[in-house]
């Protein structure tokens, strides 16, 4: 039988995805953060690369939209580093989804990233990705996720 049932190459959907993501500009522009079409395309292309590198499959619009909404009000992000920050956050998100062994939902992980980025990390992506997320995922794998959340609450007091 010659029929190939491989899934359609998702990159065919690139223009539609760029358009859909562009709608987020209306929300982030309130904070002075707007992505150009080229930057939006970079984000979508990098999403596929991150998924492939991390061995993941994603349905729907991807995680960037949620990242934009979560991070656009951060005091540590300006228009000049908006795209670069999103690209790194997106990479880190998929990497740590694997590292957490599927024990964290998208919202839990993004919420933790946002709290840490705006809190202990003070806008440092390096601190966020190489220290806090490592610890979060290690703790999640060991089944003590509540402890990390409580520690964060204690620190903020």
């Amino acid at each position, binding site marked *: *039988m*010659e*029929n*190939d*049932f*491989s*899934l*359609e190459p998702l990159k065919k959907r690139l223009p539609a995805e760029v358009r859909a993501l562009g709608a987020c500009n209306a929300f982030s522009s309130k904070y002075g953060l707007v992505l150009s079409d080229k930057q939006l395309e970079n984000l979508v292309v990098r999403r596929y690369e991150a*998924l492939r590198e991390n*061995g*993941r*499959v*994603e*349905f*729907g*619009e*991807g*995680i960037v939209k949620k990242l934009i909404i979560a991070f656009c009000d951060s005091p540590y992000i300006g228009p000049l580093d908006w795209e670069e920050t999103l690209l790194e956050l997106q990479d880190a998100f*998929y990497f740590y*989804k*694997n590292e957490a062994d*599927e024990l964290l*939902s*998208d*919202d839990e992980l993004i919420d933790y990233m946002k709290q840490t980025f705006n809190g202990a990390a003070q806008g440092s992506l390096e601190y966020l990705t190489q220290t806090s997320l490592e610890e979060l995922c290690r703790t999640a794998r060991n089944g003590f996720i509540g402890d990390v959340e409580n520690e964060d609450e204690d620190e903020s007091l």
Partner: protein
Amino acid sequence: MPENKKMAPVGGKDGPLSEADAQLIRERLLKLLQRRTGLYTLDESSSVRVETAQALLKSIQFLLELCFRERGGSIRLLAKEDPEALLAQGLQLCEEKLEAGKALYAEACLTASSLENRSYKDTLTGIGGFFKRYDYRFFAHEIPCDMDYQLCFPVDERALGVAYINEYLRRLIIENRFLGCFEISRVERVLERACPDYRGLLINLYEPICTNAVGLALLEEDILLLSVSPDQCARVAALFHQLSATPAKKALSGAAGSVCARLGITNAPAQAYIEKTATDLYPRIEAALPHGNLGNIFLSAN
């Protein structure tokens, strides 16, 4: 081989699909996968590992194939009918098979031989775990248990999930019931002769016993004695020396019939199983005949 190509034989029996149907089926499979992934993650994760997606897709294919087989259709049904409804039918059939499997497992435990064999006991215990761990909603194709015991005729490795387990249990019950027809001490003596460490090694317990019973039936001796003496072996050899392949196989088949009649085995699948055990002896007999000794096929327990 990519997982997706495994759908190919299902569609192939009615000839190649048109490009439009193939495209529609691809899209519908993708939709089903998307929906199952959403259910699996409770919509809390937009992405899953590639391995998880592949397993979910394989499970969908397994469930759809159950549905196609039940209805005598092929993957073309996916182009004509609501995919979710087809999958729901597959899930329903899987549930029914699971219930049937539980009954088969109970029967396998009830008919289990009291012979000592580590892999036999471990496998029976392991299959019990299958019914606790089997997740037919998302991973219906998986067999989450260890099964080391070798049947005389292994189940086709292409069988998956509960379909594999049920077929394995059906065959195991046939073997159990057969072994249960003989006095345990006689069975043990034949097994000792077949494999001195039959308690610890991965061997099939049924095959040497059935072979000896067939040997005795060929000579019209009492099969319940199980042991085939060297004299009797020589008589079997003399019998086969006179026969060419076809009559020899016929004789073996007839002996299998005599064994079934003597043991009161009336169940057709069991009769076929025993007949196949008997006729499969022919290549071994043929190879041993020029050496004039069938003593390593039909075993003397004395």
